[in-house]
């Protein structure tokens, strides 16, 4: 089963290779991995999409925790979470196709972030299904280039009673 694991690590050189080496050395899967500094520049946040049965995921979480440079590991599948992925897609667009491309961009609430007479570069965010869907629709036009960020995810805050929420709004 697919799991999204959120890993807070020291923002030091070599940490990425420790994490990647752990996965390759122990034969765990990585479907995607994204990493960037957090608000605190001494730490980075990794989002790892992996898969395996319950015991493998338990080992992955434990083995990650065992790395000295890993500060915190959360298996997001144990809670509610939201996740997003961004893709940047460069599409060939002949005269007739340019309007069609823009219609697709509109339907998916994507953006055109670069344009030449023969191409559009489209940015789209969403869950992996949405990205797959727009790729499928754009494919007939001719995709010249495609890059995907891999997923990032964050746990959802627990929903609080309305009264408490109101109080917070008032204070803000």
């Amino acid at each position, binding site marked *: 089963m697919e799991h999204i694991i959120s890993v807070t*690590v020291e923002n030091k050189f070599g940490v990425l290779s420790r994490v990647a080496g752990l996965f390759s050395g122990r034969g765990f899967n990585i479907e995607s991995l994204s990493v960037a500094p957090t608000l605190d520049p001494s730490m980075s946040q990794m989002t790892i999409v992996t898969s395996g049965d319950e015991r493998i995921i338990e080992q992955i979480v*434990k083995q990650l925790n065992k790395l000295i440079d890993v500060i915190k590991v959360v298996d997001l599948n144990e809670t509610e979470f939201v996740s997003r992925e961004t893709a940047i897609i460069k599409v060939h667009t002949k005269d007739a196709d340019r309007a069609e491309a823009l219609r697709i961009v509109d339907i998916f609430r994507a953006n055109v972030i670069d344009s030449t007479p023969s191409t559009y570069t489209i940015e789209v965010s969403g869950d992996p299904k949405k990205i797959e869907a727009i790729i499928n629709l754009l494919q007939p036009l001719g995709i010249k280039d495609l890059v995907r960020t891999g997923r990032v995810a964050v746990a959802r805050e627990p929903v609080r009673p309305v009264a408490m929420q109101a109080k917070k709004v008032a204070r803000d």
Partner: protein
Amino acid sequence: MKLTGAEIFIECLKREGVKTVFALPGGVVLKIFDTLHQQKDIEVILTRHEQGAGHMAEGYAKATGKAGVCLVTSGPGMTNVITALADAYMDSVPLVCFSGQVPTSFIGNDAFQEADNVGLSRPCTKHNFLVKDVNDLAATIKEAFYIATTGRPGPVLVDIPKDVSMAKAEFTYPNSVSIRGYNPTYEGNKWQIKQAAEAIMKAKKPILYVGGGVIFSGASQELLELAEMTQIPVDMTLMGLGAFPGEHLLSLGMLGMHGTYQANMAMHYSDLVIAIGARFDDRVTGKVSEFCPYAKVIHVDIDPTSIRKNIHVDIPIVGDCKTVLRELNQILRATVNGEQKDLRKPWWDQIREWQQAHPLTYHQEKDGPIKPQQVVKRLYELTKDRDPIVSTDVGQHQMWAAQYFKLAKPNRWLTSGGLGTMGFGFPAAMGAQAAFRDRLVLCIAGDGSIQMNMQEMATAVVNKLPVKIIILNNGFHGMVRQWQDLFYEGRYASSYLDTTPDFVKLADAYGAVGLRVKKVGDLDAVLKEALATDKPVIVDVPTYPYENCYPMIPAGGCNHEMILEDPPELKKKQSGAAKVTPEDKDTVLTA
């Protein structure tokens, strides 16, 4: 006052209580060696190969319980020590290895003797560091020792570029270490410990399965109390030998692939396995799906990843063996009464039956070829009053040593378990001898594995480390030969070594003492002569080449399905060879 990186290195080592460094110099660590040369507090033992330095540091660590320290140069120095680091990582040996590195400005340029030391050692160390700034050196060394010796111990590498060892900085040694990503759990969960105590009280067929973790945590006394109080039999892993007295009535000896019959049967038919500081290695579990089919499992380990890695655990307890056992004993002390003894009487009757049915056995003819088991047994009997430290290499001799050398106390047994490193034994013995100059240190070796670090004999002679090496010389990679006989129709592919070199002459060439046992009647006399010598000794004992090590659970087999003796076809094949002396091995092989 400002100190150079090399001086800071030495000040740090002194504060960590390091007395001995096993080392081999090279270009980029010359500043450190030069500084070491000008002080007297830390002894430098110059080895002949970096692998030897690593294993010596391991032997030192296993015998003392403190971190062993080795120092090597960049490039080949580093790649040579990798085997020892991997060995220490598998067997949880606290080790701090310092490697030299090319100057920071050269890193990445393929400089002379450059290697990516941190990258090379990453998969075989608990953690590693590249020190890029001399101002970070002291704190990094402090962290390295802290990580190596706390939690589940392991090797840590500190890579020091040449310019860092030469640059100057103000020296301050931190008093404490705080690493936000590293907080080993020592206290076991109280609820879980209570659950364990309840399970122990109820169990009809319990078994203690104890490993090296008991030794590293210094929990032997607590283990003894637990076993005696509850009258539970004790199985030891290869790494756990010495954690519990080998001759104690409750000890069933070693379990696993070449464990005793009773140890493996008791595991298989147990209804409660109490694993303490052991990791359910495949050499212990055999076929995982049929491992301990009737048992509930309690697993005490300081490393959470060890728990539920290979087998299902019912009561996991993450914590230090000593701390957890103390708490467990405290609960049990209040609850244990005579009832458990009655409850477990049928279990003990069964175990004694197993013990009597298939004890460890071999047949030594009075005038026949020397049996390797006989050598280990006599060595044990001749030395047990001297409380020796025993190291082994890897193979048949290692298993015979594990079976017949019954250690009474922890930290006496130096062997390579997880990685199975041939060539480990001799340097490890030297490391222990360097820590305890007055103790008797024995190295039981095979003629194959001793040759993997033979060069260290020079180190032993020069540094006056009077290790006694007993070579069970069967002219083969014996364990490989055994597998070939059992599973490859007796085709001896690259397992025959011939009887070279002449180990007696070799010892002599190094300035050590070489002795040979020519017939079984001479065994005691020669061993006694060796034990009375104050120099390093090699005792070459030509043994019966076709002796096999039993019991044996074939790889992937079940624990209760042991091979107990040579299968009939093998017996028949070897009956012709039974009277052959080692000198005639060639004729046997061509026949």
